[in-house]
């Protein structure tokens, strides 16, 4: 079954959502069926939403073993974060 029904990852953007969020995964024979199954399983057919499906094999994940060298250096360099500026009044959407 895993051969003919590969795993797909599902990303859903809700009607008022700004971005696609990972909702879960499912098995489907191809992308078309994956979309339809995702609709049934993760959206209850609510209208006005967007679904992405991606074969799980297409996703490359960062490795948990390398988490420290991978992410730690950014934490001790505060100058990388633009947190020292006072935001002028009147500037919106920041």
């Amino acid at each position, binding site marked *: *079954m895993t051969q003919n*029904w590969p795993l797909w990852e599902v990303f859903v953007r809700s009607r008022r959502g700004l971005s696609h969020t990972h909702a879960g995964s*499912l*098995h*489907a*024979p191809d992308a*078309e*069926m994956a979309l*339809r*199954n995702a609709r*049934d*399983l993760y959206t209850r*057919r609510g209208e006005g939403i967007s679904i992405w499906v991606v074969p799980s094999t297409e996703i490359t994940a960062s490795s948990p073993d390398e988490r420290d060298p991978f992410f730690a250096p950014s934490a001790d360099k505060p100058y990388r974060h633009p947190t020292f500026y006072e935001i002028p009044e009147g500037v919106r959407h920041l």
Partner: protein
Amino acid sequence: MTSTGTGSDVVRTSAALALGDDALILSHRLGEWAGHAPVLEEEVALANIALDLLGQARVLLSMAGDEDELAFLREERSFRNLQLVEQPNGDFAHTIARQLYFSFYQHELYAELAAGDGPFGPLAAKAVKETAYHRDHAEQWTLRLGDGTEESRRRMRTALDGLWKFTGEMFQPVDGVEVDWAALERRWLAALTGVLERAGLALPEGPRTGAWAAGAGRQGLHTEPFGRLLAEMQHLHRSHPGASW
């Protein structure tokens, strides 16, 4: 409704029963798949379609009377559903072939009813979105089974051929359902032909009505498996008459 006489009420009631019974009985058949579908995802899809149909049945039967009484206390001869929808599930291909024939029919029918201003307009306007999905689901699976393995193609062809004789009944005019039945049948055939061609399958040959079918489901004449379906569906209600749940 003030100007409608008893005559048109009777027509309206029998039309609501015909459409409502189609939805109710097919919903019951699809419900039988719960826990038995080929994969979990398909299980959810079939259950979704069954729930859509049950919702339609409830609205339609309520137009004709008390929905529970109509569903659970009528005898076989009082049901007005098409013989197609009462056919057993068979293998997955049989279920898909039945869905293909019926959902294409129901979608064309409701699209036309939704555009009109008859008593079924409001229901049809809501249900036509559901039937579009049912139709798409049946189409997707017909393409995959027809264009799948040797075995899946053989099964799909057997199923299409086996159910073909029940399709003629769909286009017998129903009193009170104001659509152009001949045009409906032409659109149904054209759409079906298109899908079957893409699936590498052909339109079945042979008559679309059984020679033995003196009248049919719309007249209350049903095939043998229907009695067992009703026995199962109505058992609890008949064992505890008057109970509420």
